[in-house]
């Protein structure tokens, strides 16, 4: 039971990291990023490939962050020119391009075969020690990311971001450069998503392009909306509710004799959809949200 709980917590932590990053993009800056899973995939594959070719896990993590952040650069530049509705779909496309590149370049990524046996850190601690240590690592990454985001958000840079979000034209006339700020926010958020990817790869130990579909992005959006747009604690609560929703249905089914998993799979999709609709309708500010910003 403990090990299952830890597994759930680790997955929640990874989603929380993704949600924080998205919240930084959208909640703080108003950037509509529907390609989050792309950064996640880049992080996962970067770290998996490096460690599988014998490099240290630490290097894998750093490279995952850096590469994911760099990949946000061209996208960010394009984003500066585009209206928000275009951006939503361009980012969606970006993630799809990332996935297709991973599928196609099998000399590097082994394509649809996936990368198996991605090393787990803390192997010397034994099976349960390893899990607990990994949870510690996930928590540490979350705390660091939260600290970074909070620092950026409450710095002069953060106030600039708030100002940009509220009135872009006014800021440009004040002589600051929203373009640069936007780009930096985009890259920092992407880097955090890349870190989440690395954590994911080394936990699941197997990465394959099928894991990086748009649905993951939608899940993260759900978590953000559930927790509250623009709220850092909300990122954690949202991720927790999301995982509870995804995993909880397994237990609901266990308690309902006569309901088969086959039907439950449909019920699960249905409940997630209805939950999303109800939240948007009834509580757009999320559990922790203070301001309505949709």
């Amino acid at each position: 039971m403990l090990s299952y709980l830890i597994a759930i917590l680790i997955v929640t932590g990874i989603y929380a990291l993704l949600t924080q990053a998205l919240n930084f993009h959208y909640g703080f800056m108003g950037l509509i990023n529907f390609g989050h899973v792309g950064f996640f995939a880049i992080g996962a594959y970067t770290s998996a490939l490096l460690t599988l070719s014998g490099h240290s896990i630490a290097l894998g993590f750093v490279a995952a962050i850096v590469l994911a952040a760099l990949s946000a650069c061209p996208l960010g530049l394009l984003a500066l020119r585009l209206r928000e509705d275009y951006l939503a779909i361009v980012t969606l496309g970006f993630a799809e391009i990332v996935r297709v590149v991973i599928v196609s370049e099998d000399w590097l990524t082994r394509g649809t075969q996936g990368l198996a046996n991605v090393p787990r850190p803390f192997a010397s601690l034994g099976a349960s020690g390893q899990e607990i240590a990994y949870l510690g690592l996930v928590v540490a990454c979350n705390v660091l990311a939260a600290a970074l985001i909070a620092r950026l958000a409450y710095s002069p840079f953060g106030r600039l971001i708030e100002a940009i979000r509220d009135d872009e034209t006014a800021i440009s006339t004040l002589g600051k450069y929203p373009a640069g700020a936007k780009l930096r926010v985009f890259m920092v958020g992407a880097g955090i998503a890349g870190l989440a990817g690395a954590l994911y790869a080394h936990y699941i130990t197997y990465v394959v392009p099928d894991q990086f579909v748009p649905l993951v992005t939608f899940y993260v959006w759900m978590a953000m909306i559930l927790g509250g747009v623009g709220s850092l604690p909300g990122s954690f609560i949202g991720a927790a509710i999301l995982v509870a929703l995804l995993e909880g249905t397994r237990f609901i089914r266990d308690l309902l004799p006569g309901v088969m998993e086959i039907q439950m799979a449909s019920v699960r999709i249905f409940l997630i959809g209805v939950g999303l609709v109800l939240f948007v309708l009834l509580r757009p500010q999320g559990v922790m949200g203070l301001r309505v910003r949709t």
Partner: protein
Amino acid sequence: MNGSLFYLNLVMNGLVQGLVIGLAALALTLVFAVARFPNAATGDLMTVGAYAGIGVQALNVRSVIVQGAAAILACSVLAIGQYWFVLRYLRGRGLVSLLLASIGLALATRGALSFFVGQDQYLFNTPIMRPYVIAGLRVQVVDLWLAVASLVCVTATFAMLFLTPVGRRMRAIADNAELARASGIRMQRVMIPLWAAVGAICGVAGMILGIKTVVLPEAGWHILLPAFAAMVLGGLGNPIGAVVAGILLGVVQELSTPFVGFTYKIALSFIVLAVILTVRPQGLFGSAEVVR
């Protein structure tokens, strides 16, 4: 097969693919024009249409017309329902709220559908007919019919938009929602016909997709991304643009396959999109006006 004929056949394949994408993009762009959001439920609406057709077939009705009518009816009712019970309340709440709500509607629709129909594939029992070979170019009978159906759909949409009072109101709302309200146009009276039309297009598109492929709960969802690309490329909210862009993307995608292979062709529509948006941020057929 000689060289040029090979490419000509690829163009042909692209046209057929593009028609399917273009129809989905037409449904997307209609919603976008009037309600200002990318409707992620479009794909699953199409799926419902295909299953409605299958349902009629299961009653031993072989007429594709009757099946199609059932698909149109089912999709229209569902689309109006989605508007009436959910989307109506989100007016003015911005793109993200509406997009997320439509993703929720998409998942809920698929979940409810697969609960009842299961995960097994269904097939339309359309007879297999040999193609016409015109100067080496293979023209399939079924594709001709699909093209006709698409054309009827597009024509009907345009007739509605440009020849009827309700279409005029839709265009007015799409053009300037605030002025439309000040001109006394009641949203509800436009939105119900709009969603009925969106449903009808999705019904036809779903039937076409179902006849060309197999009917599975996730079938429509997979067409959504290329349709999004076509909608954006066509200039958001531009119906002609959406259909033309859909066909264009289909043709470019298939023509590219000898050079980039069959995997990259999936990403190609987005790469084309990114390149074109770098040059023309308002899309191929979008006007340069900046909304907002």
